[in-house]
């Protein structure tokens, strides 16, 4: 049984059909790339999976449960995490507090009011910051970080709750080449405990880190398979040539 299975996802905004029966299947510890031309429905599919949008039709299963009607909170508690396309770190808080905020999300109200998990979580906060090469900025406001560092902070926040599945919407958007390379490095180690769905325009980046790819076009799945299968796929090549 796959970790995540979205099938027959349809999403209609007014007159626009953004998704028309899209599907996505992700196994455990799998890095899955979601690619396709602009407007093919990648972000919308991500949002339907994460709960930011409710699909007009279709079903999303996660860890053997139907989560189609779950709220984002319920999905997060089931082990799904999302990094938004637009960075949404909390700019006025310190990096430390940004991570702590993510880590303590499932602490009980009692623990929060009496700050009972603050001590316990300290090492985890610092470990996350170290892992994402941000430890020396721990007590700066997140607003002071560069764009790339904010993206890393956000990935760290999304990973803080030890999700089983992480959804990354364009993590390398606006990054320099060097920052992209580092992002790839930072993501590799999480494979041991977490699957990844990643929407990305940078095909080199996708090819380097993903095991499998799904190609969307006009709201439908054009092809799905391993990286080499997709690379060899005639239809996919045509799409990219046509639009390029």
């Amino acid at each position: 049984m796959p970790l995540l299975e979205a099938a027959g996802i349809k999403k209609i905004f007014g007159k626009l059909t953004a998704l028309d029966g899209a599907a996505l299947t992700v196994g455990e510890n799998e890095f899955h790339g979601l690619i396709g031309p602009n407007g093919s429905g990648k972000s919308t599919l991500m949002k339907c999976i994460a709960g930011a949008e409710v699909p007009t039709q279709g079903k999303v299963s996660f860890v053997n449960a139907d989560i189609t009607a779950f709220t984002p909170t319920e999905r997060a508690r089931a082990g799904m995490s999302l990094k938004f396309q637009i960075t949404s770190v909390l700019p006025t808080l310190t990096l430390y507090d940004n991570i702590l905020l993510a880590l303590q999300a499932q602490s009980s109200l009692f623990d929060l009011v009496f700050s009972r998990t603050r001590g316990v979580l300290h090492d985890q906060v610092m470990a996350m910051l170290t892992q994402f090469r941000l430890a020396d900025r721990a007590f700066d406001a997140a607003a002071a970080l560069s764009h790339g560092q904010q993206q890393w902070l956000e990935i760290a926040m999304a990973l803080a709750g030890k999700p089983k599945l992480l959804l990354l919407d364009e993590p390398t958007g606006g990054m320099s080449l060097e920052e992209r390379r580092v992002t790839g490095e930072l993501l590799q180690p999480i494979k041991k405990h977490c699957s990844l769905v990643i929407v990305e325009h940078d095909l080199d980046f996708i090819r380097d880190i993903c095991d499998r790819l799904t190609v969307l076009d006009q709201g439908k799945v054009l092809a799905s398979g391993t990286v080499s299968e997709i690379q060899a796929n005639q239809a996919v090549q045509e799409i990219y040539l046509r639009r390029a």
Partner: protein
Amino acid sequence: MPKSMSVVREAIAADVGDEPVDAMAEGAAAGQDRAGRKILPIVEGVVLVAALVAPLLLQDYLTVFATRVIILALFALSFDLVWGYAGIMSFGQALFFGSAGYGVALLARDLDITNIFLVLPAGTMIGLAFALLLGGFLLLGRHPSSVIFVSLGTLTGSYAADRLARGWYYLGGQNGIPSIAPMTVGSYEFSEGPAFYYLVLGILVVVYLLCRYLVRSQFGLALAGLRENEQRIAFFGYKAQHLKAIIFAIGGAVAGLAGSLYAFHEGFVWPNMVGVVVSTQVVLYVLFGGSGTLIGAVIGAVIVEGVSFWLSDNYREIWPIILGVLLLLVILFRPLGLISFVLGERERVGSFGGTPKESKKEKRNAAP
């Protein structure tokens, strides 16, 4: 000084995003005073000392006025919790303030209950109960409710309560409930004057410290997340609506406590006390003083009330206009309130963890 300037520059740099170097330099500067809430305790200390000596310096009638102001400052705390910390725009805070006032007035009138240990908890519970009811309705949907929905909902609640009180004979209609018996402890009666003043000040200090503890706890961090980006924290797994309902209820309880003190201090309650005017007044206190700092709310209440008092004495005809212009100026030019003249953004938001252990670690690292 410039501290607040630097915050503004930092914010602008972050917004525009094209001055990373500048922003990073500012960030480093902000990082240096991370250990510290340096200004805030000083401001709190000064305000406390001023409040302690005030009755010694003021004439009797001014002590009575000062007592009223302290009660309103307590009321302002309730709005700061809800708006300044959780970002819930409540335009109906007077509903909890006034209904508690009416509640204790009825206890005193109909049941002869004036014991302070009964009426103050009763008033607090009334505020809490009304806030749970209204908050439950407005905030606890399956999906987050919009700011407009909540502000109009609270406004409507307050307006409806006002109309209800005006029309309800049992509550005294337009005239409200006059001549409420004084609050008592045993046979001692609290009448206007220094004793009442220090009682109210003591309660303010205790509630202030409790609020301060709460907003600096991990719960306070969750509130900061709620205020900054409610949608984001829901994706972390927070039950954002529950958090909102809880802080809204706590705010209601504090407003209720303030309202019951107000009823006994003034000796009467009237429909305005639950209405839109008083609801708006408390918003002004907090915006004027500076939201999200607690002490800003207290300062705002003191200054707005103090200035109105002085203006109405000296400029009998046009004082509301002067006051209005003053408030507009502050809100236009200091959107973070008067407190932002001395308090930087970083210290206002504060930090919620790590610092103590971190410094230990630094010492350990420095040792060898």
